[in-house]
């Protein structure tokens, strides 16, 4: 075999040496545009797992790498004049330059030919090679040559970042957050030998412009950052090496090979630097590719095998990297957090580490978080409790009400069974304020007989130590449907009733056309909601939840997709919110206990409500007396771009809680206690609806 490797970075060199070692008779050529020691960037990070793979793949280079690398097990978080150290996270760092030198030497010893300072302009220069390996980075020639076949998706991240080195000696992966007049800046720094560290500075673009960094020279940028991070740098310098401010680019490609051309490393995929995995993924690609070539005689089968092995792994890292980058892009949202919660949130940002994982790595930190959480929840002095329950079992207080734990469950029809589940809050099914506000014939109406049922159930629920939440709503245009056991949103053929809505738009092509509400209807509905709230008080309901979500009556006023009115109830958000707020006001004055409002945080379709607007809506509801927001997603219209990824309701809860400043109940198939504890400890919600 004749291999032509384009690009002499870690991925290209490691492939070359492994291929040559596997079969010394093969010809391996590496074409590198730079001279041997012109390397850019500072240090690279490896996990324990990667080191194991490197050891198995080539013991000799592993040994050399192991001799020079820096190893540490802590993450330091500098935030609001405090430093929090979390232990149990093993990392290894090595200078990129040293790594390249080790790989170059090994390549040459094995007989790999390396053409330095060779700029390849056309991959046909290697027409005689059996396999061309593109290891030439995200902007590389190989990837660009086959862009049509590889089908790249490129996402440009909004923040600015710059890659410095520093002579600051560190013994931990270090995050620094510093706010000044220009905005919030953060540092990702990690050591790669005893004396030197990589020091990445990241900030939002507007902060970067306000700071004058858009037009700053390299020296000016260094001076600015040295000044900004002077307390942590302790007089040490920042060093530049082609250090330019950039936007990170996430590259995904449908395919990584075509014919006798294959890409690996950054030429195949990238993942945001905040999870520090670029070089690791690249070298693992090299190992997988060489293994696949050894296993198969057929080149096509080998390349497929390589892709099949690596793509799922890389996708998982890319997902985690996107969660991580998104955290850093919106970190100012958490600026009010207690440092312990801030640290927990940071450490669990990529969702790869949960409460349970972190407990295994750093039980002391998790104990500290539990203790803080519990003290804050009970109003005890900070640090008073050494032994605390996990956040899921900390109480939650709203005004004078206390829920004994942080879990809510949806009761469905069987309130009694739900009462025995141990959840603090038992939420009823949708209960209608009027006969014609029912969803199906089975939907309860809050009439005398249901009030009797509710009163009895509330008594039993209270006896079991839980509290009862009544979910009140009016189905609007989603009413007059068949029972949900037969399917959802299937209109009743016989015995249906007339529907009302802000605008005459049917929910499905088969659903009945609702009548447009007039002033009299609006007044009437406000009154029945108020009367229902009074009934709730008399039934000893603890929490009242109004349903302003999922396309029901109140929701259909909020979304511009379903509200086409031209009067004072339609058009601007203020107008669309007018009727829902009238209902909230009337209910609020009739109901003195905790009031929770369920809203659709996204209509999941273009032209509908999106998260930004949902935050505004939550602010308005808070101003009108809401105690809790329960954000859900979609169902505003019949067909939408639903997205049921894991914990799909949590991002909305996180944003609303931390941007609108109101407690939230997170839902959306939260199904394990680990998820509940992670969500609560990270401050992404105050309560969770658990799907048992």
């Amino acid at each position, binding site marked *: 075999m004749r291999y032509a490797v384009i690009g002499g970075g870690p991925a290209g060199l490691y492939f070359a040496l492994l291929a040559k070692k596997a079969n010394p008779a093969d010809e391996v050529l590496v074409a590198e545009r730079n001279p041997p020691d012109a390397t850019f960037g500072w240090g690279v990070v490896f996990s324990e797992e990667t080191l194991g793979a490197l050891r198995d793949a080539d013991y000799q280079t592993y040994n050399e790498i192991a001799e020079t690398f820096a190893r540490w097990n802590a993450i330091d978080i500098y935030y609001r004049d405090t430093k929090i150290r979390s232990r149990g996270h093993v990392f290894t760092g090595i200078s990129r330059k040293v790594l390249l030198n080790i790989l170059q030497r090994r390549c040459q010893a094995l007989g790999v030919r390396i053409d330095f300072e060779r700029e390849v302009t056309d991959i046909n220069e290697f027409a005689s090679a059996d396999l061309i390996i593109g290891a030439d980075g995200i902007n590389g020639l190989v990837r660009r040559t086959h862009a049509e076949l590889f089908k790249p998706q490129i996402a440009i991240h909004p923040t600015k970042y710059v890659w410095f080195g520093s002579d600051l000696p560190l013994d931990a992966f270090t995050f620094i957050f510093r706010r000044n007049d220009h905005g919030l800046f953060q540092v990702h720094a990690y050591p790669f030998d005893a004396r030197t560290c990589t020091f990445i500075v990241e900030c939002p673009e507007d902060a970067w412009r306000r700071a004058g960094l858009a037009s700053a020279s390299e020296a000016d940028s260094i001076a600015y950052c040295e000044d900004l991070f002077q307390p942590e740098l302790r007089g040490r310098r920042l060093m530049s090496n082609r250090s330019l401010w950039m936007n990170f680019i996430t590259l995904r490609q449908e395919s990584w090979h075509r014919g006798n051309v294959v890409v690996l490393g950054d030429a195949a995929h990238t993942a945001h630097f905040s999870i520090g995995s670029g070089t690791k993924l690249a070298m693992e690609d090299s190992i997988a590719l060489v293994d696949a070539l050894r296993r198969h005689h057929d080149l096509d089968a080998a390349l*497929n095998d390589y892709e*099949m092995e690596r793509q*799922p792994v890389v996708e998982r890292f890319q997902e985690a990297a996107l969660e991580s980058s998104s955290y850093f892009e919106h970190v100012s949202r958490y600026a009010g957090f207690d440092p312990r919660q801030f640290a927990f949130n940071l450490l669990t940002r990529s969702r790869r580490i949960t409460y349970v994982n972190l407990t295994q790595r750093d039980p002391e930190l998790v104990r500290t978080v539990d203790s803080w959480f519990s003290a804050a929840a009970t109003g005890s002095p900070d640090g008073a409790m050494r032994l605390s329950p996990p956040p899921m079992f900390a109480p939650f207080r709203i005004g004078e009400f206390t829920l004994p734990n942080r879990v809510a469950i949806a009761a469905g029809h069987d309130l009694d069974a739900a009462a025995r589940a141990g959840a603090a809050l038992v939420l009823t099914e949708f209960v209608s304020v009027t006969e014609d506000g029912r969803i199906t014939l089975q939907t309860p109406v809050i009439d005398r007989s249901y009030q009797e049922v509710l009163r009895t159930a509330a008594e039993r629920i209270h006896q079991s130590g839980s509290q009862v939440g009544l979910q009140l709503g009016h189905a609007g245009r989603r009413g007059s449907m068949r029972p949900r056991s037969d399917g959802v949103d299937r209109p009743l053929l016989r015995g249906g009733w007339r529907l009302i809505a802000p605008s005459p738009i049917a929910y499905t092509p088969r659903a009945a056309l609702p009548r447009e509400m007039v002033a009299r209807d609006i007044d009437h509905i406000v009154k029945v909601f108020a009367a229902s709230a009074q009934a709730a008080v008399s039934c000893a309901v603890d929490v009242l939840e109004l349903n302003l979500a999922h396309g029901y009556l109140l929701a259909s006023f909020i979304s511009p997709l379903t509200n086409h009115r031209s009067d004072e109830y339609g058009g601007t958000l203020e107008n669309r919110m007018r009727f829902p707020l009238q209902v909230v006001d009337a209910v609020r004055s009739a109901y003195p206990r905790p009031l929770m409002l369920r809203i659709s945080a996204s209509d999941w379709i273009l032209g509908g409500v999106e998260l930004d607007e949902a935050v505004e809506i939550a602010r308005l509801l808070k101003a009108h007396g809401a105690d809790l927001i329960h954000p859900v997603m979609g169902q505003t219209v019949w067909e939408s771009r639903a997205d*049921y990824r894991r914990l799909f309701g949590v991002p909305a809860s996180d944003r609303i809680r931390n941007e609108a400043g109101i407690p939230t109940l997170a839902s959306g198939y939260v199904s394990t206690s680990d998820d509940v504890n992670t969500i609560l400890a990270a401050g992404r919600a105050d309560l969770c609806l658990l799907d048992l």
Partner: protein
Amino acid sequence: MNIGLGLPTTMAGVSGDLLVEWSRRADAGPFSSLGVLDRIAYQNYEPFTALAAASAVTARVRLATMIVIAPLRNTALLAKQAASVDALSGGRLTLGLAVGARGEDYQVANVDSRGRGRRFSEQLETIRDIWEEGKIGPTPKGPGPHLLVGGSSGEALARMARYGDGYMHGGGPPRAFAGAAAKALAAWSDLGRPGRPTLWGMGYFALGDGTAESGAAYLRHYYAFTGPFAEKIAAGNLTSPGAIVDFIRGYEDAGCDELMLFPTAPALDQIDRLAEVIH
């Protein structure tokens, strides 16, 4: 978890006699169902026709479409065909429906593929109505054939939860099934359906000397429309008893209710070979 066996309706040179004999043996074997695939622009038997033939020589196994591309068909006729196979087989039909993945099938059927998702939702609702209303017979006993919905997008999962009895996955390693199943459960709960959706998975197998190569070649041909992905599907063909056992265990752990294994070698010995593995 139940194990179903696919009928080789999409492989070159398979005679009607072989399909009938295949069905007879599956009914006598340890399989809970017989499954068929669907496409138009391909050398394969039409799924309802094949299941009707199978129904005549079987008494026990469920008969499943996995899946039928609904938007290519007239809705009333589709409902009638399904109800007919269900009636002919004594209520043994499991109707799996989806929008399919091949533009070519839409072209040859002269059906616009744009807006097919929305049209499919309407079809699902209409089919249920037809079965329940009884205007278009044969009127099924009870609510009609078991109706499962396939597809991987969020829209497809919402559709499944709204109108289906469960979810049909399109194949892949257990891990892929587990991810899709979690989303199906989430959609079901989100739309407020009581209970839980039935979950079906599928895989391909070939057992015996020389079948691994021919099986991979068949899959490459069958999935050529997916481009380079066809190679991955071909590589996923289960060609040893150990691989099948691992696959079954993985699906069972992921909560699958029924796993349909489709042959990639159209020879009757495949049935006994598979039966031996799953026993």
